[in-house]
């Protein structure tokens, strides 16, 4: 099997699910004839036709609402946000309507909202966001954010099959930089399960998406320069969080650093730190620290973006602080 990119892995997952289940269809802006702003849906229109690959008006509320309505009737829509930043436009529909549908009205909403997320690409304030925290906070939604090509394919397939709404964040920095060989057959990855990206014994770095690779770089550097063994936990799913895996790695290494690209205040790192505090305080040899973006909108210029976002050197510095406590 040849290597394919993270982006191609997502497309392969969608294509396989559309071929497997005729209720699966895609809708979004410029996804059909054009193949999507990043070409994730390239070729789908030719293969599946206009009935199953819908080019829509620029209407995030309309698209998400329509997906919910179709999902109620047994369809499995896959919505593309052209950039995940625009999911904010559909915040009401997702949090008030979709997230509550099963609970308040016993209406299933098996749908996926997916889109290119994240920075390190000089995209500026509206093409670089990581808006996952607001949705992780909303009961009724599931949130997935893969880092590897294998997980991207396995998780998009699981997301499409899930009986609830799954928000599928795709890191655009990883789209064409990360490659993998897909496992044979019907490859799915369970939602809600983290992955140990690197085994270690002295410190746990808990992270997800693009910063998984920065954490791995930092781990290499710490091994080489300091002789310490760092474990890296890739969360993969943010809602529901894999508590078991988080507590297991902390109890193994007794030290934890939480890293994410999203801004600091109200970000996932706070929640993860609280859970470690509640469940594994007695195992800790040091306070849990965070490496995150600064609390500012993400600026465009390389000098500004690189300063605001977490870098490998930040992770190394913070890891040394936790290790030397």
């Amino acid at each position, binding site marked *: 099997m040849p290597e394919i990119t993270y982006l191609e892995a997502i497309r392969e997952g969608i294509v396989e699910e559309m071929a497997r289940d005729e209720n699966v269809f895609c809708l979004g802006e410029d996804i059909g004839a054009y193949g999507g702003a990043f070409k994730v849906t390239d070729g789908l229109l030719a293969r599946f036709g206009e009935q199953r690959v819908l080019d829509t008006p620029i*209407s995030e*509320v309309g698209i998400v609402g329509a997906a919910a309505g179709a999902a109620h009737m047994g369809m499995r829509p896959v919505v593309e946000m052209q950039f995940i930043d625009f999911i904010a436009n559909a915040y009401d529909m997702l949090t008030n309507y979709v997230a509550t549908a099963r609970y*308040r009205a016993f209406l299933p909403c098996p749908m996926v909202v997916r889109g290119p997320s994240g920075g390190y690409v000089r995209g500026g304030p509206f093409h670089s966001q990581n808006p996952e925290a607001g949705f992780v906070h909303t009961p009724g939604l599931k949130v997935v954010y893969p880092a590897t090509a294998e997980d991207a394919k396995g998780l998009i397939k699981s997301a499409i099959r*899930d009986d609830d709404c799954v928000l599928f964040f795709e890191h655009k920095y990883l789209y064409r930089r990360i490659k993998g060989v897909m496992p044979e057959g019907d490859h799915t990855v369970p939602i809600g399960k983290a992955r140990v990206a690197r085994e270690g014994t002295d410190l746990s770095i808990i992270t997800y998406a693009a910063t998984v690779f920065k954490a791995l770089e930092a781990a290499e550097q710490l091994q080489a320069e300091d002789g310490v063994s760092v474990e890296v936990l890739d969360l993969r799913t943010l809602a529901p969080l894999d508590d078991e895996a988080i507590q297991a790695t902390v109890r193994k290494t007794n030290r934890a650093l939480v890293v994410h690209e999203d801004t600091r205040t109200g970000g996932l790192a706070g929640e993860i730190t609280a859970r470690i505090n509640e469940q594994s305080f007695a195992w800790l040899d040091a306070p849990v620290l965070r490496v995150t973006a600064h609390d500012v909108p993400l600026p465009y210029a390389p000098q500004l973006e690189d300063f605001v976002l977490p870098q490998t050197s930040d992770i190394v510095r913070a890891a040394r602080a936790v290790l030397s406590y």
Partner: protein
Amino acid sequence: MPPARSAAPSRAPRATRAAGDAAAADAPLSPERLLELYYWMRLTRTLEERLVALYRQTKVVGGLFRSLGQEADSVGSAFALERRDVLSPLIRNLGSMLVKGATPLEILRQYMAKGDSPTRGRELNIHFGDRDRGFIGQISPLGDMLPVMAGVTLSFKMRGEDRVGLVYVGDGATSTGAFHEGINFAAVQRCPLVVIVENNGYAYSTPTSRQTAAKQFVDKAIGYGVPGEQADGNDILAVYAATRRAVDRARRGEGVTLLEFMTYRRKGHAEHDNQSYVPKGEIERWERENDPVARFTQRLTGEFGVATATLEAMDDRVRAEVDAATDEAEKSPPPQALDALVGVYADPPRAETLWYREGDGAVVEQHERAEGWGTYAAAPAPPKAD
């Protein structure tokens, strides 16, 4: 005596843009069907009057929303649908839901927050639905049901099903982005959807003059490239005929129609609202001159030759039904607190109990629904009376 339809000239229909294209829509209803219309309007009104009594006894634990004076537009429009069709009601469409199969017992249990209410105490008032009977539960943010119903009807189109959708919005909801995005999406996709703007003069306290600079809501149809029609919302036969034309059009694959029904909200936004913002005498004038039940009664006994005794017997039947439902609903148990944790997701089926509330978990297990609950194939189990 109920007046003719010109009684309230300022809110009478001003334009008809898409009338007369379906003979079936204008075919006279049979005497039985006419009496059915009367039954549903009377049931709506009597049930709401009962709810007022229960509200005053504090048995309705939340707000109470009335549709007094608007019964014709709900009942008449829902009556134009087939059983397989799907509608999405708003807060003043109790009548539409009753026509679609919601029962007084369900409504009463729902308002009284009973454990065997359609939402098991999770939602208020008439916020509930049932896909089998063809109505989708609304949410409070206005306009949101329009995109949802665009999607429901998109699924009909994609699957080649002979089904139509109908969505109600108020004059206020037309100002939302969701309204615009939803009707535009449905129009572009030619979804089999009927959009009804119930123009009752007020959105909470805000009059239509503060809601839009458009002369009339039906004018918005032009901008979306769909046919529009305005009708007298207090004339149930006009409502039925206009809706039927739009439904037939949707069924023929001709897409969305925007209907504007002119009516009037005689009660406040909810029962607590004293309507201080309404010009003096306006409510009384509508009650006196343009009550939809009175108007239909006059036509039934006049032009259709129905005996007054027949209608009185139906009123008695309705009262007896509402009495029986009230007795039944009062006996219903409240929900068990830990049922609050069940059913946010299909998987996991329940949220974890916080540790300082542990020890009551067994209640949830006992109350949890069995396999298949909440999935597409399984409709909600019918409510059980304990």
